[in-house]
């Protein structure tokens, strides 16, 4: 035997996944893989453990998958009681808040890897949650900067009827005001979601979408707010006027794209694809960042202790190389990961925001999302 076992420190990381009922995506290309997110955490675990060989640290990953109607708090307690102080959470906002409040007085740090709700970074922020998922405000700001940089400032908005659509629209309105976009009209798409897979209907859509977008005031881009994909993906190439589509369909803002290859991302994509046998998606990246953030803090502090890792993660010295052309860090005022955001269509990245010319007194990436002076977050 080589080194004595006592010399190696173990850092257990938990992953809590709350299953939710989601509509089937309009395109069968976008059906979510079963290991979405978990695969990203797993490859980050491998990265951490490669480093851990040299620092005598070992990282483990335990996944708790909570079925619809299951008890997420009980699942979290199970992880916590078995020594998991760092837990990634892939769950809707209300579940995340319940989890955060349930472990309020314990040495537990949660990573929100999926919920994009702005409120989680604002009035509903929690001291024991860091967010690696960008929120809707960051995503809308990133897209708006690109559209304004491109000199396409006049937007016709096509909005759905669900609360998520309106939340995204709020972020778009805010972004328009901040960066000089103009919403020329908001048009609501009232049809409720129907069957997604059918062997007929294309002809109807070809007729409906031009009519839906007919007679608009002069505009540059059709901006879609339709998070549940009721109609958004049907809009590109079917608008009455020949205009590009952006927002929740067409050109989108995202933390990661399977064809992103800048700043060393090629290696990440290759490593992930060899491991998971599929493309790396935004949720995989957001989980990768969370697990790597724990690993990085453990290797920098030379510690497996919760207090040391937690403090380092939130401190000035923390930075993580995450294939975005600059370090990613956590904003102290709301726990949000500060990160450049990709602007991409389905095939390729088009740009990375922040865009040139959108200035900030400290760091340009803080032009995306809720900045310190306007933050409503009071940690509790």
């Amino acid at each position, binding site marked *: 035997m080589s080194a004595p076992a006592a010399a190696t420190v173990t850092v257990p990381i938990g992953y809590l996944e709350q299953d939710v009922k989601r509509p089937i995506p309009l395109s069968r290309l976008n059906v979510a893989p079963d290991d979405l997110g978990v695969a990203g955490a797993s490859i980050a675990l491998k990265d951490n453990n490669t480093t851990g060989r040299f620092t005598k640290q070992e990282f483990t990953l335990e996944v708790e998958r909570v079925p619809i109607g299951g008890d997420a708090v009980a699942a979290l307690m199970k992880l916590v009681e078995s020594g998991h102080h760092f837990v990634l959470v892939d769950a809707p906002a209300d579940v995340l808040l319940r989890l955060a409040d349930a472990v309020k007085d314990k040495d537990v740090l949660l990573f929100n890897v999926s919920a994009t709700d702005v409120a989680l970074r604002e009035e509903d922020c929690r001291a024991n949650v860091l967010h690696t998922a960008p929120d809707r405000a960051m995503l809308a700001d990133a897209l708006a900067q690109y559209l304004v940089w491109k000199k396409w400032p006049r937007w016709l908005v096509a909005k759905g009827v669900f609360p998520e659509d309106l939340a995204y629209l709020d972020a778009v309105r805010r972004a328009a005001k901040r960066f000089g976009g103009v919403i020329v009209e908001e048009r609501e798409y009232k049809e409720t979601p129907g069957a997604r897979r059918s062997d007929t209907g294309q002809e109807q859509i070809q007729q409906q979408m031009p009519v839906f977008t007919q007679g608009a005031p002069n505009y540059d881009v059709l901006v879609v707010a339709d998070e549940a994909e009721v109609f958004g993906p049907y809009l590109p190439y079917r608008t009455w006027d020949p205009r590009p589509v952006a927002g929740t369909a067409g050109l989108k803002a995202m933390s990661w794209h399977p064809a992103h290859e800048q700043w*060393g991302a090629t290696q990440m994509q290759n490593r992930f694809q060899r491991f998971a046998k599929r493309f790396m998606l935004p949720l995989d990246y957001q989980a990768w960042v969370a697990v790597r953030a724990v690993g990085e803090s453990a290797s920098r502090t030379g510690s497996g202790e919760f207090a040391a890792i937690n403090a380092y993660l939130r401190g000035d010295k923390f930075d993580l190389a995450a294939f975005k052309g600059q370090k990613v860090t956590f904003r102290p005022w709301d726990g949000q990961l500060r990160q450049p955001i990709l602007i991409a269509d389905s095939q390729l990245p088009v740009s990375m925001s922040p865009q040139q010319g959108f200035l900030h007194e400290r760091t340009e990436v803080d032009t995306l999302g809720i900045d310190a002076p306007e933050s409503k977050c009071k940690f509790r």
Partner: protein
Amino acid sequence: MVRIEGQAALLAAVLSVAAATGPAAAYTVYVSNEKGNSITVLDSKTLEVLETIPVGQRPRGIILTNDDKYLLVCASDDDTVQVVDVATREIVGDLPSGPDPELLNLHPSGSPVYVANEDDNLLTVIDLADKKVLAEVEVGVEPEGVGVSPDGKTVIATSETTNMAHFIDTESYEITDNVLVGSRPRFAEFTADGTKLWVTSEVAGTVSVIDAKTRKIIKVINFEVPGVQPEYIQPVGVRITKDGSKAFVALGPANRVAVVNAKTLEVEDYLLVGKRVWQLAFTPDESLLFATNGNSNDVSVIDVPSLKVVKSISVGRAPWGVAVSRQ
């Protein structure tokens, strides 16, 4: 206005070079064009492009063999190191580098060659004479920088995601020390006297100067460029003069090469170059320093004595590595 000043300064600098050193020796400069899949060949005296050699896909790290007869080219997307005969400017062979070779370096005796396999967490050691793999050393995630100590006893691999400089014994191929440095270490360079190792950290924006004997960090050098936000200061390539007086550090999208006093480790100057400057190489007489600018498709030529940028030369698409022949 700025441009006129620049040209005047350029002319003055060129004249001063000519006056100071008389007719400069002519060396051949090789630049790998990552997106152009080619090597641009330049003349260091006329600063003109002599030729463009088509090579494999995504050429990045390049180095000349000790006899200056061959240029070794990491053709990353072809998973090989190509051997270019500099006399005929043709590819005459390749080395079994393993997948995705990125940077490479030579033992002072001329062989073996050490290649970082970025995709495979390996440092591959290849004998140049018989082109056989002597060893594969497992290092951290995404190895990139390769430094060799002047006495040939130690090779360094830097791993970009593990954030370490791994010290590897060149006889046993064992890792003897791991030094944690700033995020995304890209390049490792020993001083000529072998006492110090400089490691650049692209994402942290720093350079760690490590004592080669104790393997402790002596100093972490920070950079501040007026008008450039800190996150755009991304050190990559570093070269140190043989007398150990000056170090030059390429700062990536800060579009500057920093001049550092290599004795006091204080930053003395920032030279404005092209966009996203990555790698650097001196001429053998250290009169000129060539800097590759990946986002402006050119090479900046720095006059070392006067610390002036004297010319920018258009090369291929996304210039990456640079090497200068003694002939």
